[in-house]
């Protein structure tokens, strides 16, 4: 991410903050839900899109973050401390989940993360002292750097701020040795190993960093909803997150935000449209159907995600589509993807 992009990003974020007071609570709510989901999607994109480790337990990891943040917050700590603590705890759990990745590849690993998801769900219900079991952990509002921001607009400001920081951090990270190794491992684990990359250690770093971000996102979610309950972190949430990064674009930073916005807002939009037509059951069914069909359509027509669509549109607007056409790029990566499947 260049300096200019960073400036644009911060400007947009500031603009959102300026607009915030004008939005209703519901509007602010939508803003922070999207921002929080974006942080989570960014974390997952780092793992799947940049390091090639397919994971279906992201929902569970957000849960770990939520419980950790809740417990730290309830112990009277500042929200910042709670979020960082949640990040660290979740990073640790994420590394544990990542350990099988040192031995398992591709689909087998993906399915072991599915197992991790179910085991986490079970533990959330079981470890009463930490999670309050099925009742869920009620979370007291905590100050943020000593400020009382415990209302929907305050949360929106925090979430957007954190999202901007995460985006900048991840984009910087990808420009370091570690980030390059992530991408190398995604493209070819065998080549990476042959090049002398310590694949095991690099993968675990990916899990740790992704886990840290997921933990922060989950922690923020917990503070905003004032409860961390097991039902909120089930497999469906993991699936939603995978949908976000695929719809947005694997291995794309703006894609994480676009995808999160899409997956969070689409049902909401479909719901509103449905409501104008009447019957509630049908609305719910139509909302689901629109979601499912749109995902399928996007994947068929734009397997590289909405971000690629967007960037192509931007390029067309600028009329600077140089000799390096998009087609050329995608075909080479398609080759790799096809190979990855076989």
């Amino acid at each position, binding site marked *: 991410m260049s300096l200019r992009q960073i400036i644009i990003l911060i400007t947009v974020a500031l603009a959102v903050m300026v607009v915030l007071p004008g939005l209703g609570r519901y509007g602010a709510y939508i803003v922070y839900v999207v921002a929080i989901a974006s942080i989570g999607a960014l974390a997952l994109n780092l793992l799947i899109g940049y390091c090639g480790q397919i994971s279906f337990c992201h929902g569970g990891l957000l849960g770990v973050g939520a419980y950790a943040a809740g417990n730290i917050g309830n112990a009277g700590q500042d929200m910042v401390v709670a979020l960082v603590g949640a990040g660290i705890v979740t990073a640790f759990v994420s590394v544990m989940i990542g350990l099988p990745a040192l031995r398992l590849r591709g689909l087998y690993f993906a399915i072991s993360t599915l197992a991790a998801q179910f085991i986490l769900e079970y533990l959330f219900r079981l470890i009463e002292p930490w999670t309050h079991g099925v009742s869920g952990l009620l979370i007291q509002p905590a100050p943020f750097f000593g400020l009382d921001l415990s209302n929907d607009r305050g949360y929106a400001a925090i979430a957007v701020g954190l999202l901007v920081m995460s985006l900048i951090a991840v984009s910087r990270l990808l420009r370091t040795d570690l980030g390059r190794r992530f991408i190398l491992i995604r493209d070819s684990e065998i080549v990476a190993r042959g090049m002398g990359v310590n694949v095991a250690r690099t993968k675990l770093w990916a899990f740790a960093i992704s886990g840290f971000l997921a933990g922060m996102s989950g922690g923020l979610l917990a503070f905003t909803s004032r409860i961390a309950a097991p039902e909120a972190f089930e497999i469906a949430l993991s699936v939603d997150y995978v949908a976000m990064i695929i719809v947005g674009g694997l291995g794309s930073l703006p894609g994480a935000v676009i995808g999160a916005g899409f997956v969070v807002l689409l049902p909401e939009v479909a719901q509103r449209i449905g409501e104008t037509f009447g019957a509630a059951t049908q609305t719910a069914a139509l909302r689901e159907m629109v979601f499912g069909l749109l995902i399928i359509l996007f994947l068929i027509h734009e397997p590289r995600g909405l971000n690629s669509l967007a960037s192509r549109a931007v390029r067309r607007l600028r009329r600077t589509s140089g000799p390096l056409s998009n*087609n*050329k790029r995608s*075909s*080479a990566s*398609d*080759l790799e993807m*096809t190979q990855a499947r076989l």
Partner: protein
Amino acid sequence: MLDVSGLSVRYDSVIAALEGIDFEVGEGRIVALLGPNGAGKSTLLKAIAGMLPFEQGEIASGKAVFDGVLLNGKHPAAITRSGIALVQDGRQCFRNLSVGENLKAASFRHSKGAEDRLQLVLTYFPILEEFYARPAGVLSGGQLQMLVIGMALMIQPRLLMLDEPSLGLSPVMVQSVFEIVERLHQDLGMTVVVAEQTVPRLMEIADDVYVLSRGHSVLHAPPDEIDEDRLQSLYLS
């Protein structure tokens, strides 16, 4: 019988593997397709057999015509049915299936007279009868080579194309593979294209020689015009 003209092939839309190849195979002839590693021999055979799209390759220009029918863009299954059999490199067969099933699978699209052809294949390759019910995976390299040639025969081809059949085989095995090729040619009048790096035995039976190098056709001559020195200069220079 087979007429390839001006054929260029690219992989991944960028990597040029063949440039403007002309290649002709007359009915009933044995054609040797020679060239060092990476010269484009396999690519040429795959282009003819329609296998390129499955390896991210494409025919960029030129055409391949078999018995007056354009092969460009045809599905491999259709090309096989029109009578071209390709024995690919790496001895591609179904290793988890029995030898018998391998042969049967090859005759699906060509069920007429399949029984007779099966008997024929088994007489050519007695070893296959011996291993008939065992998984192909247990065969040795030479036996596998027999099997894949046998499978190609089950297709009832008029044009048989072999891609480096001698690769990784012991000299004795190489000898017997070429013996088989010669017998097929003599007994059945089959047209054969053999792509190879090493030559001597092949030169004895070939009617025609093409030499490829780095994606270009560098020589087309009858075998007696090609001596070792000339080849050596083409290969080793």
